[in-house]
């Protein structure tokens, strides 16, 4: 029987916590930004869109280093946030931030595409029935785009679960704090006698990934079914 050691349990727990936190916190701004990019045109839109996609194109190490410069203890944003009790440097929250930033473009892209698919004429029909912009968004646009939002969430979560480069650059690999599954696997590859433990961890990683994928696919599909009528 395959039993998990306390250390392994702790790694899995941390990985899921980091990925879930990253996904949860990037969802509201991601959806808002996707809606903005889908429905409005404004000066600087191309720039904003490009900036959003930057983590997708840049080497993750560069993104991680940029985070370190910005959110490190001496970084401008890090210093700004520290008095409020928000610290990212070498903390699991930093790992979540790195995962969120890396997953953000995937989320925004999927959600934006699904907003693009929602017919604005349907929205204007809701307007003539007495729905203001916010109500219209919540009752028409968002439900119709929900399958895309679900897909984007799955993507972002998967990315967060596997994120390596930006995380290790930004918050290093601190056992129990920032050492998520990929980081733990990597550090085992550096040990001369870590092969058995490495194999176990790889199997766990595959299991967790498949489990998360199946679960989220099921979730996305049930959302799509409930909303219905949207292709």
């Amino acid at each position: 029987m395959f039993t998990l050691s306390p250390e392994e349990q702790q790694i899995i727990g941390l990985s899921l916590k980091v990925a879930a936190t990253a996904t949860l916190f990037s969802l509201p701004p991601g959806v808002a930004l996707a809606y903005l990019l889908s429905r409005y045109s404004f000066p600087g839109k191309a720039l904003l869109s490009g900036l959003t996609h930057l983590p997708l194109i840049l080497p993750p190490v560069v993104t991680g280093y940029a985070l370190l410069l910005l959110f490190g203890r001496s970084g401008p944003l890090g210093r700004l946030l520290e008095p409020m009790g928000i610290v990212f440097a070498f903390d699991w929250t930093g790992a979540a931030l790195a995962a969120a930033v890396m997953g953000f473009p995937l989320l925004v892209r999927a959600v934006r595409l699904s907003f693009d698919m929602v017919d604005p004429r349907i929205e204007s029909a809701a307007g003539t029935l007495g729905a203001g912009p916010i109500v219209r968004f919540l009752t028409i646009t968002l439900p119709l785009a929900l399958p895309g939002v679900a897909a984007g969430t799955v993507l972002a979560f998967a990315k967060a679960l596997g994120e390596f480069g930006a995380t290790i650059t930004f918050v290093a690999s601190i056992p129990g704090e920032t050492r998520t599954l990929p980081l733990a696997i990597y550090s085992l590859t550096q040990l001369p006698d870590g092969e058995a433990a490495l194999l176990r961890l790889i199997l766990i990683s595959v299991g967790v990934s498949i489990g998360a994928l199946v679960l989220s696919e099921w979730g996305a599909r049930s959302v799509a079914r409930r909303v219905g009528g949207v292709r």
Partner: protein
Amino acid sequence: MLKVSAHIVLDDFSLDVAFSSDARITCLFGRSGAGKTTVAELVAGLIRPIRGRVVLDGEVLLDSDTGLSVPVWKRRIGYVFQDARLFPHMTVRDNLLYGPRRSGDPDPALDQAVALLGLESLLERRPDALSGGEARRVAIGRALLTRPRLLILDEPLAGLDGARRGDILPYLDQLAREGPPILYVSHAVDEVARLADRVVLVGDGQAVGAESPDAAFDRPEAETAAGLSAPLSILDGQVTTHDTARNATRIDLAGTSFLAPLLDVSPGDRLRVVVDARDVALALTDPVDASFQNRLQMQVAALEVRADGILVRLEAGELRLKALVTRQASEQLALAPGKRVFALVKATAAARYA
């Protein structure tokens, strides 16, 4: 009372709008692409004009001088789009109740709308399981349930075949009698003739008027707008007797008795008869042995020379009729204003539209 004046500029055309109407049914009439829907969208608040003013029942909805524009969702104007635009993720029932839920209407007239539009069997369906005619009926019901001050119907019959039109027309008739005032967008003469109390002609970058259908169709622009090849007389009347066996209907047209073969009417019904000016012949004496069932003694009011002949305007009391004859015919009969003639109309030439 709806008053609209505006200058609209869209991508590739501009439109000057000026009309006011307090009729039950006001028709925006014109060719496809003339800008009818644009005018409707202006009234609903879906587009903004360069400058303009829209007043409904004394409330200013738009005034470019003061910068006032009541947003769409606060105008309480129902809009039935040509493409229905039902919400695909909701059942018919939820579509119908969308408006009342927004306004917090505690007692939406759901049953009433369902009965009026025959929606009983559709309530639990999704929009993608509806036919075109059913979807439009649901869209009408959905707009009605917001208790609108004005209902805009954008080509509610366009693209439907004969049977589906027959599905909707009776509901429109009933709506016209019981519902809110209607702004009806159409390019079809028969619909306008059947339903309109006032007609606004839309064409050549203008939307002006709000006249009676007969007066509106008397304009040369109307002929172009409608794609007509001859002027029409649109006559309001009331059924006096109806002989079902011989399918012969006697209609009182402003005091003149008129025979037409109509279906599904009963004495007392108010209706409109449309007669093409080419279907009216003239005679100086009463041709009693001819087959014309309508031989109306009338007086020539005016003659108009047209490219395709002479348009003879006839009158008898309140009744106005137009006849299009050739120049030769006009000379043979020595037609001149004041001359007494018999207007000959075959009963089968009279089309019924209401």
